[in-house]
């Protein structure tokens, strides 16, 4: 299916991560890895700690225990903007676009890290600064074309419908040319057509740019279709880790999804 790309070695390894908030344990001793160029899905019921996991990976939460190795380097405690600088981009469960800005500006903002011109040149908007703006504009236009959002280029994102906002958010994350893209429920709240579009975009991104993708998704159909591997979290613990078929056959996963164990008691705090 994904013939054009070659899944490589581990890009990011998570080892024995534990995270708690004021006594509430959100993640307990979790380990898994994300391999280069793959699409990894993280699934689990509400409160399983999926978003917390992404927050740990991109430096927003600081786990009490465990370590993260990214591109072969073990990472010390870092701030989110440092993670971004190392090529990790993400989207959010509840859309976190810059509501006061246009679609184009949102995407250009995603490209911020690639822009180098000093402040003074920007104030003068001369020569190199202008050239830089235009080069990046051209790049962002390619993303706009790719995601088919040309018509809303100059619309303030606050006025866009939900589905398009999700797409703009993906565009903003792509603008950073990330090596690792974290998508938090990219298809939540979408209708079937929108979901299909989004799946197509995710796969295209993976294929054309070779971007490694880790995504959280509830729709099992989608997950099984597009991911190379699946990590299942429940109540802050890892239940299973493997190819879609392996996971589908796992008894613990089945229990969790049928709700026979402790799903009702799962704390919402971790989400």
């Amino acid at each position, binding site marked *: 299916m994904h013939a054009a790309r070659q899944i490589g070695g581990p890009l990011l390894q998570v080892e024995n991560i534990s995270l708690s908030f004021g006594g509430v344990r959100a993640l307990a001793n979790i380990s898994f890895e994300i391999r280069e160029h793959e699409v990894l899905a993280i699934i689990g019921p509400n409160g399983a700690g999926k978003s917390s996991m992404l927050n740990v990976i991109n430096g927003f939460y600081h786990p009490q225990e465990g370590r993260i190795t990214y591109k072969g380097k073990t990472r010390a405690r870092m701030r*989110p903007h440092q993670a971004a600088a190392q090529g990790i981009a993400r989207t959010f469960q509840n859309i976190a676009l810059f509501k006061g800005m246009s679609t184009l500006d949102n995407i250009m903002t995603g490209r*911020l890290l690639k822009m180098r011109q000093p402040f003074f040149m920007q104030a003068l908007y001369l020569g190199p600064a202008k050239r830089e703006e235009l080069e990046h504009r051209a790049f962002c236009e390619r993303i706009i074309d790719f995601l088919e959002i040309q018509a809303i280029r100059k619309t303030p994102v606050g006025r866009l419908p939900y589905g398009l906002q999700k797409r703009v958010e993906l565009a903003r994350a792509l603008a950073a040319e990330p090596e690792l893209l974290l998508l938090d429920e990219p298809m939540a709240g979408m209708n079937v057509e929108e979901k299909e579009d989004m799946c197509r975009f995710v796969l295209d991104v993976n294929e054309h740019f070779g971007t490694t993708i880790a995504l959280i998704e509830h729709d099992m159909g989608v997950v099984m279709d597009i991911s190379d591997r699946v990590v299942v979290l429940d109540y802050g613990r890892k239940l299973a880790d493997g190819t879609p078929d392996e996971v589908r056959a796992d008894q613990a996963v089945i229990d969790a999804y049928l709700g026979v164990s402790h799903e009702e008691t799962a704390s919402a705090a971790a989400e």
Partner: protein
Amino acid sequence: MFYREAGQFKTSYAADQAIFPILQDRIFVAFLLLVAFVVVPVVANEYWLSTILLPFLVFSLAAVGLNLLTGYCGQLSLGTGGFMACGAFAAYKLSTGFPELNIVVVMLASGVITALVGVLFGLPSLRIKGFYLAVATLAAQFFLLWLFNKFAWFTNYSPSGVISAPPRAVFGDFFVTGPQATPAGKYLFALTLVALLALAAKNMVRCRVGRSWMAIRDMDIAAEIIGIRPLTAKLSAFAVSSFYIGVAGAMWAFVYTGSVEALAFQIDRSFQILFMIIIGGLGSILGSFLGAAFITLLPIFLSNAPNIFGLSISVDTVSHFEFMIFGALIVFFLIVEPHGLARLWQIAKEKLRLWPFPY
């Protein structure tokens, strides 16, 4: 009919990224600049130049500065008066300490000094947000005024604590401060400086730095996650904003009034400039100018109104009514258009685009 962009196609991103992409706008702005630079100095009398246009220009610059911080970066500040004072006193110390320094350099350097002070008082913004930050910026307001009032070094040991601008020329004998300066000369100097700085502000907000401010304003956590350092973004906003406000303060002391004491930059001044950007439009450079015009002209209009209409009303009644009308108008504008005059202007333009054919 006349305001049509139909048929104007952009063939390059450069043309599309221009400040005024529409031809009519470019013509209008060129016309406006022509009037401001050529017609006004010839036609306007001294009263208009020195009591309406000069303060308008100075206020506009300060409003642009505050708008960069509050409107674009979302950091509410009530310390504007203190930063203006900082610019004024820095300019005084520089121009008396180094008399050979050109006045333009003095103005910009005092802006830089104010920017440094602004960064210092911007540091709490990394921890403190919203109204807490607004009240904390009052610490800057009160502390700075106290400092300039208290230490005679800032006023060159003048017994009264008042500084007055020494006469300085931009070149030759084109004096822009001191008694030799003509109102028209001062006006042109202020206009040039303000126009250039406003252009620079416009460039900043449409480039990387401006986007990083707006990202912090709209959602600071998301901004950090896509790689914006809050420290850099917030402090650069404080620095640039304070630079503008500092230059405005220096112009206030040197070009507009000619002499000030620290008390001229009281907290009322901070509120006045905050009004300008709210009435004019948060996050709009044009709005800063519209707001400054509105807030400068309204009281003058109100206090002249009885004369204009040939009424004889005692001055205290007029002043009290001024307060009431001013307050009522602010509420009125907030209700009618919370996004300020700049938005009204935009709506008017959109209407004009279709005129005379309604939808």
